[in-house]
């Protein structure tokens, strides 16, 4: 222990104890002397006339330890959440629920026929949309054969090509296949390959 030299009996004291103790005793003697002429004042002295709420100092210590975090302190340590008036006072709501003898309800995903039917319709519709609008995208040829007639006609660079150059770019077999394919919306699906080439 960082203290005074002990007297050999194994006891030590904090450093500077005897010096402070002497000063403290002198102070006490002086204090007693000051109040010798004020007996009523001396008799009236009572240290614990003020009280604090229960647990104040312990709770306050926790609050004061947030001082290095001023933003937390200024936020007032409140969550900001509010409840309706008399929410906690109204116990009838809780009593009603606690008095309910029903057992736990198991909600089955397959219980509702409507939900099952709706899910099936959604799956089937998705499959149909995929089949109609997206599946054929993989079959799209890369060449000019798959270009719609009107797009070709509008394209100025295509118009500048002469027939020989266009013929070289077209793959007639693929062109015929696409024109005679299953696209029902194509106005020209009944036109022959030769007629299309002539128009271009």
């Amino acid at each position, binding site marked *: 222990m960082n203290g005074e030299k002990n007297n050999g009996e194994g006891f030590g004291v904090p450093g500077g104890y005897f010096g402070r103790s002497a000063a403290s005793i002198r*102070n006490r003697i002086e*204090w007693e002397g*000051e109040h010798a002429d004020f007996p009523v004042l001396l008799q*009236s002295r009572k240290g*614990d006339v*003020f*009280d604090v709420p229960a647990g104040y100092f312990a709770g306050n210590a926790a609050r004061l330890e947030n*001082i290095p975090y001023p933003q937390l302190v200024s936020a007032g340590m409140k969550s900001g959440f509010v409840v309706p008036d008399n929410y906690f006072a109204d116990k009838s709501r809780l009593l009603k629920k606690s008095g309910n003898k029903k057992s736990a309800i198991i909600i089955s995903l397959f219980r509702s026929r409507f939900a099952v039917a709706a899910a099936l319709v959604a799956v089937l519709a998705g499959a149909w949309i995929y089949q109609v609008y997206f599946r054929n995208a993989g079959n799209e040829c890369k060449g000019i054969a798959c270009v719609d007639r009107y797009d070709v006609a509008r394209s100025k660079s295509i118009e500048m090509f002469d027939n020989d150059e266009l013929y070289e770019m077209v793959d007639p077999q693929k062109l015929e296949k696409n024109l005679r394919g299953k696209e029902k919306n194509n106005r020209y699906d009944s036109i022959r390959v030769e007629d299309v080439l002539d128009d271009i």
Partner: protein
Amino acid sequence: MHPDDDSDIIELFRDESTRNGALEKLIARYQQRLYWHIRKIVIDHDDADDVLQNTFIKTWKALAGFKGESRLYTWIYRIATNEALTFLRQKKRMNTSSIHPIEHELSRNLESDVYFRGDEIQLRLQQAILSLPEKQRLVFNMRYYDEMPYEAMSEVLETSVGALKASYHIAAKKIEQMLVNA
């Protein structure tokens, strides 16, 4: 290590990794002493609570600049005293609706304060203390209740020992007469 040494707190504070530990020690060591000192000045518990918090905030912010010219506790005690007096002066300025001084209000509130458990004599004593001028009241509380040595009081209030002794004697005499005549 004697608690009044406080070098352990300063050491903890200087090291950034242990700084928050310094605050915890400070609070554990001085919270109650400071609280009771403040409470005797402002009387009301909630006001004392506010002032105590402000005291620790100011202490924490200024601790880096503490030069060790006085004991740490004396330094914090001075901060607490100034905070309490500032609080009362602000309360006085805000108390414009009343023609009575703030100490009169505090004295009146004491009678119905749930956190005051003194008897009739204690109530009269507190009311007598409240009738003293501000500095005299400080000196009286520090000497009468805390038995603070005049040398330490001199550091806190930055007043000479002789002036403090004279001030206390005048205050004690005044209150003794009030209690006798009550």
